[in-house]
């Protein structure tokens, strides 16, 4: 079922119909396509669509399978681990992070196939953290421009959100109405009201009304392990079918191991492993969209004589300034039945602490949200984190239907020491595996301590008893940050690497700062923007051969390695 490629020979799975296919344009390895894109998640899937719709020839590779959710997804946490990136990685540093499950994906559609669907905008000021708020760095893009692209993505995904969103400048109406908030979300509402701050139903990428062949969300609650009804607006059921219709080719179960560099120092294609053999796809441009670990890993693993430190790495910053988001939670037992397994896991939130800095002893922001972990996920919290086992664990787990919790998505500040690098060990393809090194800084610790104090007080006021908390991380960002100067960033604002003009990056690894919201909407907004920028540059004849590179890029020559 998932061991043989499905997208080939002129057709791809129809994600909306059991056993059905849609026609797909296919390219030969030896024909140079305009764009080879590595990764088909929030970054690569979105960009494949935008570029194909702009008329470019596109082949997008994914290491994972091409699922048809209606027939391939069970209502089962254990089985659905098949959606995760389970290749070996080493996690180190003072606060080594958990990998492999919620912060990874190995499917066409990437981790959007199992994401929580929380679709938030980074507040305008946070894009200019340095110049407006005095910490970290600025993004090289104007907030107003990012907010325009947010609108495009919200429309493309038919985000279901509230009529009035309490924070930030006015935004357009969400295309679909908000979902009814479940009891777990109403606990958050109580907590916020007790603490005197605003809350809102979460803007979610799951349908609240029919769309094409997909019917509205039925609140089955298995979102975190894949949506079997297609209500979830993942890249797999939105950007990917659109991309294929516009002429893009998707290659599933195709692991890219290396980007090829020609004698002129330009990217000329990719080496990829599919159906038991290594093959080479020629391409005029290569886009890396493998997320914050695989993207730097591939650039480093593609080191060659000309670029011995890895590709796009003349600044030495490939893999650096890696940022998870803090994901600390407070849990409690309620008198009422909550039954948090019903509905999307995160139905209510507050962004209060993203929009006010009053009373904080740290820079940066965070949101916090209601929760609804499934049994295995919850058991991991109660056993591994809280430390219970034996009959004590079974009896505690039996309170499942009375649990509620509040969990942050917290901004972790960029620090050069937090990084992705290559370990000596190799994987089944013979490629060096990544080592992830992470330690919290002082400001990060102050942020989550503030959040834990605040949430604990709120949850107690909402009626929570027997409160306890756990630490954790979610979402992986940075590692190939974009910027305004080749000396302190890997790409420019368009995701174009400073060193190799036809090598691009389009995913969460571009983030200069992490923001205090789930990143998927921002990654997709960036991808839409990069797609538009590429179309514009192509129209102006600004890329292709080195000769066509604009003057601003030619000047960068002095920063390239000898």
């Amino acid at each position: 079922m998932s061991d043989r490629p499905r997208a080939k020979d002129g057709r791809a799975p129809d994600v909306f119909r059991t056993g059905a296919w849609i026609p797909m344009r296919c390219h030969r390895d030896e024909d140079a396509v305009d764009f080879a894109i590595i990764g088909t998640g929030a970054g690569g899937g979105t960009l494949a669509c935008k570029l194909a719709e702009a008329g470019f020839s596109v082949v997008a590779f994914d290491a994972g399978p091409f699922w048809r959710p209606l027939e391939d997804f069970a209502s089962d946490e254990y089985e659905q681990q098949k959606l995760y990136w389970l290749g070996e990685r080493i996690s180190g540093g003072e606060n080594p992070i958990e990998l492999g499950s919620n912060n990874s994906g190995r499917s066409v559609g990437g981790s959007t196939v199992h994401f929580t669907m929380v679709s938030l905008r980074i507040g305008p000021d946070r894009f200019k953290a340095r110049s407006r708020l005095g910490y970290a760095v600025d993004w090289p893009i104007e907030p107003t421009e990012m907010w325009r692209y947010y609108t495009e993505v919200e429309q493309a995904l038919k985000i279901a959100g509230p009529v009035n969103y309490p924070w930030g400048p006015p935004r357009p109406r969400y295309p679909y109405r908000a979902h009814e908030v479940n009891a777990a979300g109403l606990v958050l509402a109580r907590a916020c009201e007790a603490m005197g701050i605003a809350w809102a139903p979460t803007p979610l990428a799951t349908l609240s009304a029919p769309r094409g062949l997909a019917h509205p969300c039925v609140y089955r609650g298995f979102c975190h392990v894949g949506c079997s009804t297609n209500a979830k607006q993942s890249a797999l059921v939105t950007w990917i079918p659109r991309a294929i219709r516009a002429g893009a080719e998707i290659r599933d179960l195709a692991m890219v191991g290396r980007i090829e560099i020609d004698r002129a120092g330009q990217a000329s294609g990719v080496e990829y492993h599919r159906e038991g053999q290594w093959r080479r796809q020629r391409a005029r441009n290569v886009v890396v969209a493998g997320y914050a670990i695989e993207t730097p890993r591939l650039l480093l693993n593609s080191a060659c004589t000309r670029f011995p430190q890895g590709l796009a790495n003349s600044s030495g910053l490939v893999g650096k300034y890696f940022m998870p988001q803090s994901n600390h939670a407070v849990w409690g037992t309620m008198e009422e039945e909550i039954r948090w397994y019903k509905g999307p896991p995160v139905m209510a939130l507050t962004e209060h602490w993203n929009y006010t800095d009053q009373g904080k002893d740290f820079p940066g922001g965070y949101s916090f949200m209601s929760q609804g972990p499934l049994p295995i996920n919850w058991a991991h919290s109660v056993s591994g984190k809280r430390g219970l086992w034996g009959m004590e664990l079974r009896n505690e787990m039996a309170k499942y239907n009375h649990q509620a919790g509040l969990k942050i998505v917290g901004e972790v500040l960029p620090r050069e020491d937090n990084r992705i690098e290559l370990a000596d060990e190799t994987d089944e393809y013979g490629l060096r595996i990544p080592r992830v090194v992470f330690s919290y800084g002082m400001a990060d610790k102050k942020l989550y301590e503030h959040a834990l104090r605040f949430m604990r007080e709120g949850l107690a006021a909402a009626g929570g008893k027997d409160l306890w908390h756990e630490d954790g991380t979610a979402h992986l960002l940075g590692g190939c940050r974009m910027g305004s100067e080749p000396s302190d960033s890997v790409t420019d604002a368009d995701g174009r690497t400073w060193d190799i003009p036809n090598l691009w990056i389009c995913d969460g690894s571009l983030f200069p700062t992490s923001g205090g919201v789930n990143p998927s909407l921002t990654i997709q907004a960036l991808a839409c923007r990069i797609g538009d920028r590429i179309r514009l540059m192509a129209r102006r004849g600004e890329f292709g051969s080195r000769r066509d590179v604009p003057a601003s890029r030619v000047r960068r020559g002095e920063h390239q390695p000898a």
Partner: protein
Amino acid sequence: MSERFDARYPDYDVLKKWDTPSWNEQTRAVVAKRLEQVPERRFLDETEWSILQAVCDRLIPQPDRVGHAVPIVPFIDAKLWKNQGNGYRYEGMPPMREAWRRGIRAIDEEARLRWGGGFRELPTNQQDAVLRAIQHGDVRADAWQGLPPKRFFSSTLLYEVTSIYYAHPAAWSEIGFGGPASPRGYVRLGFDRRDGWEAEERYER
């Protein structure tokens, strides 16, 4: 510590929904396989297997299911046989297979050092004392060299054991979880609201 499970949902069995719209064909296939095709021993040797069995009996005691306990060790063995990890390991931890082999041996050695007998031979209170010491990193056995005991206990052993136990319908039933829910999901989402196909709690509040 109590050795009794306080049943809150004595009348509820998630498997009774097998033929309802809450279960679709692919979910039935996955759960049927889990229930009917319990893996044979292929990776661990007999001694390792039986020590691990004794450990699991303490991590998830099932005195209420004599003769029909939820199997855990066979699924750990199957995972080790396939060598399918969880996507990472902490720096300083050996690769998965080696971590389990060494961890099981170290638990047994720890038992001998503390109580003069292998883990399987100890009474349950001494077994629990051994496991609690390991959980808190208070170890004496040489076998822990290069195998951080707290990490092994929480992130490897307990993580896997709870993954497998709470993947079983019997565990879903005992916590009142709705279980598989596709194509039919839920309608009533608010406080103290329950759809007719959800577990009814019978418990003194």
